[in-house]
Structures are given as C-alpha cells and as structure tokens.
C-alpha cells in the first residue's frame, strides 16, 4: 500500500446525510457524503462526531466507520440507540436526510486491518461492535480477498442482528468467510445456532488454534470484549494477536 506523503491536520468537517438505513428496531445506519479532500480510511478506523446545542454546549462520541475503504465518496456509521444516552438517540431518531453532521477522522492506527497482517482472521462482535468488523468484512469482499475469516457475532435476538442479510449473503459466497451467530436472549423456534453468551467452549469450537497463526479483532461492550480477550489468551493466543476495541458500558 502506498504511504501518503503528508498526514493532514485532523479538522472538524461537515457531512450531509445522504441516506438512512433501518438496520434493526434500535439501530440505524447514516451515510454521509465526503468532500474531495477526505484522505480515505482503513478498515477498523472511527470518526469522532460532535453535536453542538444552541447554547454552545457540545457533546462528542466516537463511531466506527462501517463502510469499506473502496466505497469512495461516502462513509457509513451505524448507531445503536442507547435509551438514556446523550448523543445516540439524536443520531438514530432525529437526524434525517439532508441534515449536516459534524465529524472528524479517519481516526485510529491500532484497530485496523488492511489484508497485509495475513493469518486467518477471527472477528468477534457483540451488538454494535460489529460496525468496525463489518468494514473489514466489506473490505475483504471488495478486494476479493480469500483470507480465511470467521465471524462470531453475539446479539440479543435475531431481530437485533445488524447487517444480517448482508453477512449471510457474503458467507454464502463460500470464499472463506464463515459466520456464527449466538443469540443471548430470545431465539426463534427451531434456532440451531448458539444460544448463550460467548464462552471458552464456543471460542474453542469457532476460533482458530493458536498454532494456526490467527489474528483476532474483538469489539463491543467493554465487559464482552474483556471476557473474550481473556478467554482467547487462556486458549493460548498471544495477547498481541488479539486486538480489542471497547465501546464502553453500552450495547448488546
């Protein structure tokens, strides 16, 4: 990959919302139009979003970029509504097509995947933690990459699974992407997938063996991320092959 000669100052920009997509009853994707000077992003990076009230009060939160780097000219973030939250209810319920949103990015040089690290990939998501991993999955598909990849994805119920159709379609291409769902609260009749929180046994069944040289990306609510990262290390993974992105206390 070519290295850009200069890294521009990180400045606040305004993007127009060009599209909204209902992902689940609590989750919506916002597609933002990008200006020409957007430097491009790497799969896994995020943006900081800033809201300013009329009295000048500002609130700032981070959101992962869910779209692939190849999807030029625009950027997608997928936001889960946290009931008593300051920022997410506004993004999910009030921001509409044509509105402007202030953000800066792309941000983050650690939780990124650009195909070169190689190794089979293990992606583990809880709830909206799927967002940066989806950028990796979309990047992988856009590149025609065949890096063996397993996604273990924990949701409360089937209707809470974000990007369900797209993920299942990509898995059906049989190009090395396998998807495993676990539903922690409600299961539809006849559900044959996992039906509990991610645990050591599940990671043994789904994850790669440490001697296969895997690289892991784990993302979601902090308690889930810490439990999964600990379990992988217990299974013999080297801690520096397990990259984590904690979203904080929120999420499924």
């Amino acid at each position, binding site marked *: 990959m070519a290295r850009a000669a200069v890294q521009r100052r990180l400045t606040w920009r305004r993007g127009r919302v060009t599209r909204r997509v209902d992902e689940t009853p609590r989750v919506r994707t916002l597609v933002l139009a990008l200006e020409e000077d957007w430097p491009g992003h790497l799969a896994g990076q995020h943006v900081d979003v800033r809201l300013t009230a009329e009295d000048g009060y500002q609130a700032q939160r981070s959101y992962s970029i869910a779209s692939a780097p190849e999807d030029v000219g625009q950027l997608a973030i997928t936001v889960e509504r946290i009931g008593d939250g300051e920022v997410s209810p506004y993004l999910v319920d009030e921001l509409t097509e044509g509105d402007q949103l202030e953000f800066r990015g792309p941000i*983050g040089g650690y*939780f990124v995947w650009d195909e070169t690290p190689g190794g089979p990939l293990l992606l583990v998501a809880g709830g909206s933690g799927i967002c940066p991993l989806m950028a990796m999955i979309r990047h992988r598909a856009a590149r025609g990459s065949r890096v063996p990849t397993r996604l273990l994805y924990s949701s409360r119920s089937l209707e809470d699974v974000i990007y369900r159709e797209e993920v299942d379609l990509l898995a059906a291409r049989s190009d090395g992407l396998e998807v495993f769902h676990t539903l922690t609260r409600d299961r539809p009749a006849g559900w044959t997938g996992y039906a509990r929180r991610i645990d050591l046994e599940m990671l043994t069944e789904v994850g790669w063996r440490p001697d296969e040289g895997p690289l892991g990306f784990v993302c979601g609510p902090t308690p889930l991320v810490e439990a999964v990262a600990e379990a992988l290390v217990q299974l013999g993974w080297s801690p520096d092959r397990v990259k984590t992105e904690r979203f904080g206390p929120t999420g499924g």
Partner: protein
Amino acid sequence: MDESQLRLDGNAAAGILREVFAMDVSGAQEACASCGTIGWMGAQHLYMYPLAPGAVVRCSTCGDVLMVLVRGGGRYRLALPGLRWLEMREPVQAPPET
C-alpha cells in the same frame, strides 16, 4: 456501575491526541517505565469520558499511568509519568487504490 465497564482502549483517544500531536499516537509503540512492557498505545487501557475531562492512559500490564492529557480553558496539559519512550511511525494513511 463498576469502573472497569467504562474502560476503553487507547485507540479511542486517537482523536484527542491528534489535537496535540502531528502524528497518530494510537498506532505508536511505547515502553512502560514501571514494568518495562513494550506495547502499542492503542492497546493500553484508556479512561476517558465521563470519568475524566481528558484522557488517562494506563499500562494494560501493570496498571500504572502512562499518559494524562487534560483539555480545558483553551489549554492542554500533557503529563507523561510512566512512559520510558514513545515511537511514532510515519503516516500509513493512504487513499484506497482505485
């Protein structure tokens, strides 16, 4: 709520760190002055909103404070009590190949 639930990864402070550093710090390597562990800033423990008016980065191995960045009143105060060194890399940010 248990404080550990609010823990984030150093990676989440990449934005505020770019307000003071020209280069990305989340992808930088560091050595902890206390325990000597060499790691990535993005992989260390971060305590940020709503616990702190800025960012506190702690070593994920020994828990000692590596870096504190506080912002307010038009000033930034940066403390580096626990870093033996910090090694940043030239930008890897690249536009997607077309």
